[in-house]
């Protein structure tokens, strides 16, 4: 593949990143998708929208969050200088709120009266319920029955915030199925409802819009690293489910060839175990069409979607955002994976070494940091996107460690 002049020009007007992306939705939704696209493009051109977004990110979310030098981990791993981008310090404890604030401001501009969303780990559900409470809008969150069982604290948080959590019992009862049911709700309540998609996937303009709202992460890293170290970082590592935190931290650096970008997929029980044992769509999938876009999918020979597995409910999705699919094919971003077991070790290591409980999602990225850092020189500046905090995961971790709480 020839190297493009810029990696930041996508998507085209039809929502394509190379062969990926697009608008594969039912006709009932199509007029609304076009409305969202128009409204989003108007909003982005409106200084009042930008101003409002900026103020709320500062005062409500608590941005900018720090680019933290993980001194002890750097010393122990004995190589690259490691920094954590502290998205877990945002209000609600993850990067998801960045996108939710942006999209709910858009939903209000569009005059929508009701918000729906899907959630896996519950982080996006909590963030959505939070902004709905803030703006006094009714909120329905679709969540797989299996995820409800393993993410009880977040389910209760959503309820406290006034959201209705609907248990999804179809399919594997995880994130993919929650998205199916959210789409079914949307197609039924298309006139008054806004679907607040949580990851950089789905029909155009969602992958672009979510990326734009999450790009604040990478923009801050750029400025903070300049201020702290006087230059760009050398590598950035982020976990990939749908890939919203990763695209957010990567995008501002796509045209900085000196910055190595690494995405970490969930290898579950191991990539060699088959498509129902991991959630690594790029490493173990092939291109297909699901949930409104063409991307890498875990599927069988007949094009049926597999369920996927990860210890982390937030990565347990058989697809990946279309821009990541394109960044993989174009070679700009390197995609690797981490297993459940490696992730559990990294989770504990981070807790003891830095006094920070990382989300299991983010702990996947940490696995790659722990692999790479020792092989690099002390001048190498490596950034980990610490996308969420791990308090929600302590029950899962305890179970895997054989501890009963």
């Amino acid at each position, binding site marked *: 593949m020839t190297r493009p002049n810029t990696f930041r020009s996508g998507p085209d007007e039809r929502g394509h990143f190379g062969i990926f992306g697009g*608008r594969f939705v039912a*006709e009932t939704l*199509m007029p609304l998708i076009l409305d969202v696209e128009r409204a989003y493009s108007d909003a982005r051109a409106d200084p009042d929208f930008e101003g409002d977004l900026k103020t709320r990110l500062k005062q409500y979310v608590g941005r900018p969050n720090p680019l933290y030098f993980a001194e002890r981990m750097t010393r122990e791993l004995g190589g690259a200088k490691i920094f954590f981008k502290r998205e877990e310090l945002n209000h609600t404890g993850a990067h998801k709120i960045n996108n939710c604030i942006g999209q709910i401001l858009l939903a209000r501009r569009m005059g929508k009266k009701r918000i729906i969303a899907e959630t896996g780990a519950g982080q996006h559900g909590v963030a959505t319920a939070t902004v709905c409470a803030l703006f006094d809008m009714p909120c329905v969150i679709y969540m797989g029955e299996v995820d409800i069982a393993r993410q009880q604290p977040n389910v209760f948080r959503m309820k406290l915030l006034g959201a209705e959590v609907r248990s999804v019992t179809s399919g594997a009862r995880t994130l993919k199925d929650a998205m199916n049911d959210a*789409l079914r709700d949307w*197609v039924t309540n298309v006139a008054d409802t806004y679907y607040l998609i949580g990851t950089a996937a789905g029909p155009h303009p969602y992958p672009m819009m979510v990326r734009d709202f999450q790009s604040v992460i990478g923009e801050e890293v750029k400025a903070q690293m300049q201020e702290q170290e006087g230059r760009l970082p050398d590598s950035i590592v982020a976990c990939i489910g749908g890939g919203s935190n990763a695209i957010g931290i990567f995008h501002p650096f796509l045209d900085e060839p000196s910055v190595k970008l690494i995405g970490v997929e969930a290898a579950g029980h191991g990539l060699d175990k088959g498509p129902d044992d991991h959630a690594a769509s790029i490493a173990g999938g092939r291109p*297909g069409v699901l949930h409104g876009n063409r991307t890498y999918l875990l599927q069988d020979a007949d094009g*049926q979607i597999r369920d996927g597995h990860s210890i982390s409910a937030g990565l347990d999705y058989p697809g990946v955002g279309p821009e990541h699919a394109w960044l993989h094919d174009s070679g700009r971003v390197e995609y690797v994976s981490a297993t459940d077991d490696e992730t559990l070790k990294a989770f504990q290591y981070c807790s003891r070494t830095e006094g920070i409980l990382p989300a299991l999602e983010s702990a996947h990225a940490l696995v790659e940091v722990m692999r790479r850092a020792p092989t690099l020189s002390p001048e190498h500046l490596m950034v980990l996107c610490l996308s969420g905090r791990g308090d929600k995961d302590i029950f899962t971790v305890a179970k895997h460690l054989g501890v009963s709480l």
Partner: protein
Amino acid sequence: MSAERIARRFARLKAEGRAGLVAFITAGDPDHETSRAILEGLPEAGADVIELGMPFTDPMADGPAIQAAGLRALKAGATTVHTLDLVRALRARDDETPVVLMGYYNPIHSYGVDRFLTDAKAAGVDGLIVVDLPPEEDEELCLPALKAGVNFIRLATPTTDDKRLPTVLRNTSGFVYYVSVTGITGAASAGDAEIAIAVERLKRHTDLPVAVGFGIKTPEQAAAVARTADAAVVGSAIVNRVAAGLDGDGLPKPDLVEDVLGFVRDLAAGVRGARG
């Protein structure tokens, strides 16, 4: 030849002065052999057009009945190849009744668009309804299908306004499928008056026959739709009869096929008597 079966059928219905019944079943539900027996019995039971659902793990536009039917079929080993086998089996006995495959894009994408169109046409498929391919994605399958002589039947919905309707109708062929409610299959039905207005609106934009579906559950409802539309589509209600004919282990009871076909006969009687 095959692309004309639909046109010929609607021409005949027009000559008979009545609307048609479009009967939907999911291919391979509850298993290949039972599904074949139902399919082969549909023309005689009064189905004027057969809509054969292609099972998919993630049917985003379908309600619980058709979701469950798809999962039953997949569990019994349904594949795209098997679906085409069913069409071939029907064609060995019936070369007149149009068969339209309805489904989602990924299994076709995975099979390969060109190979799929060649095989589907050879099997005797007349048209395709692919829920997640709006006009914005016509290059994917719609245009290749038209080129291959397979009808591409588009869904028009209450959210398709007059401004958008020409876009939706542009590459549509065979007939137009009007989805009478904003929602998933098997949901509540729209009112008769609403449907009449919608059909009239579509007729202003196209000469193609208009079939109306979503939420039609009884012979009476089918008859009401048949008074204004060129055809009534019944899906979830038929598929529910399949589900009702299974025993505790999910195996078909002996009278399942006859019960399903009996229900289709009732629907057909409703449709045929509608304008009498």
